[in-house]
């Protein structure tokens, strides 16, 4: 795991390119905004100003917090449930045969339909909101983890049986490391999917959260606020990627070198 100087330089180089491309994007934005001089396309500086005001007033943290809380709860529920069901289907061909049509249907229901149905059936409450997100996300976790469970190495399972690993040791040391990459994939794509769905869920049936706020700004055509909130959200999601997902990935993959 030692970083040679060459690797270090490459990383700095990559970082510079990333910063450069973001600056270029901001510059383009600035040029077009100045050219247009319309409240419908505020300049980057104006957006950052709004971002600051909204943060200081506490509104942005409040709504962002609500959305993040929903995101975390629904993410955890769908990951845990999806992993368990995915393993069961991947290891039991008969179960899989039976339920695979259910999965195909679930995968193809438009997100908006599940959201509406959840609100209609369970009322405009927190439970229905979380459920709608989970139902949207779950099939994809199941399918991804099922793929992993189908490809478990039989030779290692036999080894574990001969050496009397027992269920706990087998799960921890034989199964989990093989499933982990699939669970990570499900988690990555899941996070991206969930935060898009969750805004719609909030827009349709909650009175707080990012989706709710965006809805308000839409009604007043307040583009600067819309962009400010989006920016905050993008930054938060990317931070989660860097501080949680990437380190987890590195730790689990270190044996590959």
């Amino acid at each position, binding site marked *: 795991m030692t970083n040679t100087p060459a690797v270090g330089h490459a990383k700095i180089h990559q970082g510079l390119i990333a910063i450069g491309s973001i600056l270029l994007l901001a510059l383009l934005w600035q040029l077009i905004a100045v050219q247009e001089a319309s409240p419908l396309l505020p300049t980057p500086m104006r957006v950052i100003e709004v971002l600051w005001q909204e943060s200081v007033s506490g509104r942005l943290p409040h709504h962002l917090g609500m959305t993040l809380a929903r995101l975390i709860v629904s993410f955890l529920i769908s990951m845990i449930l999806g992993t368990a069901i995915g393993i069961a289907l991947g290891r039991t061909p008969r179960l899989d045969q039976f339920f695979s049509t259910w999965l195909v249907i679930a995968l193809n229901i438009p997100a908006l339909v599940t959201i509406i149905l959840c609100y209609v059936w369970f009322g405009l409450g927190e439970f229905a909101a979380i459920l709608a997100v989970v139902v949207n996300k779950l099939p994809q976790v199941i399918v991804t983890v099922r793929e992993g469970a189908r490809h478990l190495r039989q*030779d*290692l399972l*036999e*080894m574990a*049986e*001969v*050496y*009397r*690993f*027992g269920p706990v*040791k087998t799960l921890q*040391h*034989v199964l989990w*490391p093989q499933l982990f990459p699939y669970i990570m994939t499900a988690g990555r794509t899941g996070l991206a999917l969930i935060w898009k769905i969750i805004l719609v869920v909030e827009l349709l049936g909650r009175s707080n959260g990012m989706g709710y706020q965006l809805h308000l700004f839409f009604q007043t055509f307040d583009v600067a606020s819309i962009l400010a909130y989006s920016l905050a959200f993008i930054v938060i999601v990317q931070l989660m990627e860097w501080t949680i997902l990437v380190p987890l990935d590195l730790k*689990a993959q*270190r*044996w*590959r*070198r």
Partner: protein
Amino acid sequence: MATVTALRIQNLHKDHGRGPVIDDLNLTVESGEFVCLLGPSGCGKTTLLQLIAGLDRDYSGDIEISQRDPRVLRIGYAFQEPRLLPWRTVRDNLSLALPAGMNPNKINRFIDTVGLNEVADQYPNTLSVGMNRRVSLVRAFAIDPDLLLMDEPLVSLDAPTARRLRTWLVKLWEARAHTVIFVTHDLREAIEIGDRILFLSASPLEVLADIPVAIERKNRNPEAIESFSTHLKTRYPSLNGLL
């Protein structure tokens, strides 16, 4: 010393569904004995080991293994491929195999004795094929097994590595005197390391001949092995297909 039976197989019959693979096999191995099973590839040797190890319980007949600890039967199995967990270090691979209740410190001492100290904290992917085989053999020994099964553990290694590992393996075995069943298709290898060689027929598997290696271990140099092998070929012309 009175001999104790370590393994007794009676009327073993195994069928994969396309005719018998093993038909009415009888076999006894004494405690501390190093028995080589020699037969053509595909004759069912691996199947036999899997039955003995309990990985496949779909057979008729009796397989009795005497165990020292009445609670748990300990079988050390060196598979043809090392079957190490790639995501665990050598040390973890070894200690994970230890049965519950065995002192985990034992593994550290064992790693010392067998000369794996330098690689103990590395992952199997970073080690040579020969080293992976070595770790897999050490794992089989480390659990202090009632019975040690080895399925061509030295196959497809280059000749010098195989020779080194063979010598090392015999030393490891001599220090502990475990009961070993060693599958091979190499007669010279069998003569070099075995107490007894069972010649097996192709499917359905049966024992064609049961021949003790009548050379003292310290005298098993290449010439002695060669002359014993020639002796077998003249003495048992019926085995020539195997030799």
